[in-house]
């Protein structure tokens, strides 16, 4: 079984650091290191945590259409990707990145992804994409099928992806790669590090300040070791990655967002650009624009159980008077919150913060209420 799992360029390093490994999206990944999920989580919020996210799908999408100049080339590639996502990509600044979603014809979310416009003039007409591990094969097939006549997809499966997250991340990364500390949240810049070409993005999925660094496979371990050399940095597994993103109110694809949920229902309507709302022109626009206008029938909300019992994925949500109104899509214990946290979909009559609800945990109704997300304050660096 283990033999069939794919490895990342850091698998050997994880094992040497004493990681407990697990199968995730076809990869042999560290679920936790000797520190343990709880302390890894708290360490990331307090100092800095290093995550191997090399299993995620990186790709470059290059326009093949004739265009006038660098800006013209960007307009071509932006128009191509905008036929699949509802985000404002055309007006994205050079070196800017955006969280968006690939949509089905019925407006469901096929995946969530990061779309980055290159910083350099000579790279315009190109987009850098990062998609989820479990969905990357189907995402890339979709891009090729839908955009094949307008753009060329280069899958960057020779590149690893490391994330350093936490309040100490900027100091650590800037000491190693000078200049990165000046980048603001959701910007990307290319760097050369000891001869390796790096793509450094100021982003992450923990709610903390931090970076994602795309690095050629053969230099990944060297970079990881250089980051781990700082006494502020600990390696962090998938267990804490999940509890950190849950507290940050961020969606886990396949759980909090699925092909059945629209971005409006998923409460990520911020990913739908203003111009796109006026113009449409993305898959499922009819449903999505209708939901924006009239409101969706259900919405993803934060949930705070009032007791100590965590409410896990699949837990039924009932109104205070016992009517089934939805279910939990992600839930567990939030180490920074110090108690259980969850998110789930409820009928829109019950979405206001403070609304009293019940979560049916092991057959017992546990009182809970709707809460604003994130559960912990965001600490992104905006300059």
């Amino acid at each position, binding site marked *: 079984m283990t033999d069939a799992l794919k490895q990342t360029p850091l698998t050997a390093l994880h094992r040497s650091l004493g990681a407990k490994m697990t199968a995730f999206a076809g990869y042999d990944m560290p679920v936790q290191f000797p520190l*343990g999920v709880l302390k890894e989580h708290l360490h990331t919020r307090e100092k800095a945590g290093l995550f191997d996210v090399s299993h995620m799908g990186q790709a470059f999408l290059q326009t093949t259409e004739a265009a006038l100049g660098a800006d013209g080339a960007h307009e071509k590639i932006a128009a191509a990707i905008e036929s699949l996502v509802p985000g404002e990509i055309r007006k994205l600044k050079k070196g800017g990145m955006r969280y968006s979603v690939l949509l089905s014809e019925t407006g469901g979310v096929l995946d969530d992804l990061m779309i980055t416009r290159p910083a350099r003039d000579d790279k315009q007409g190109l987009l850098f994409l990062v998609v989820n591990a479990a969905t990357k094969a189907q995402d890339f097939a979709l891009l090729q099928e839908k955009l094949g006549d307008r753009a060329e997809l280069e899958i960057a499966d020779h590149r690893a992806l490391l994330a350093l997250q936490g309040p100490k991340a900027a100091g650590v990364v800037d000491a190693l790669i000078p200049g990165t500390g000046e980048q603001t949240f959701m910007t990307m810049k290319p760097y050369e590090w000891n001869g390796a070409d790096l793509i450094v993005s100021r982003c992450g999925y923990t709610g903390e300040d931090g970076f994602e660094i795309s690095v050629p496979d053969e230099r990944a371990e060297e970079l990881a070791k250089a980051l781990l050399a700082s006494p502020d940095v600990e390696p962090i597994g998938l267990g804490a990655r*999940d509890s950190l993103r849950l507290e940050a109110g961020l969606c886990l694809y396949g759980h909090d967002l699925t092909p059945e949920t629209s971005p409006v229902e998923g409460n990520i309507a911020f990913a739908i650009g203003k111009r796109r709302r006026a113009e449409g022109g993305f898959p499922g626009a009819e449903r999505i624009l209708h939901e924006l206008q009239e409101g969706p029938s259900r919405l993803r909300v934060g949930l705070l159980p009032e007791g100590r*019992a*965590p409410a896990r994925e699949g837990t039924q949500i009932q109104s205070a008077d016992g009517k089934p109104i939805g279910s939990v899509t992600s839930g567990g*214990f939030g180490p920074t919150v110090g108690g259980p946290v969850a998110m789930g979909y409820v009928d829109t009559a019950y979405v206001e913060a403070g609304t009293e609800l019940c979560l049916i945990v092991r057959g017992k109704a546990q009182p809970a209420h709707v809460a604003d997300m994130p559960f912990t304050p965001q600490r992104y660096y905006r300059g």
Partner: protein
Amino acid sequence: MTKYTKDHEWARAEGDVYVIGISAHAAEQLGDIVFVELPEPGKTIAKGDELAVVESVKAASDVYAPVSGEVIEANQPIVDEPGKVNEDPEGAAWLVKIKASDPSEFDTLMDEAAYKEFAESEE
């Protein structure tokens, strides 16, 4: 004498009362325990029934009764401080005490050597 189950519970005989908990191996596998749910004293339980729940950050795990009987005491301090289960799972962080209705059930459980071998074979 302490005996173990294949579901990683332990039971220790104190007369006709059995102290029940989860094994050190189970606690280590679960990782940081953040929630414990125990039955009310007075509850009657059959061997193999769900007795308690322990949850780590990652997942919830049922604890099954190693012997049948009546729950006579629950270890309330571990409900307030679930992390104690990781510190001393086979000692201070016992879960419940059961007054056994059929003490012969205890004899069918694994001794420490057999359990150690079983736990290793599972990995």
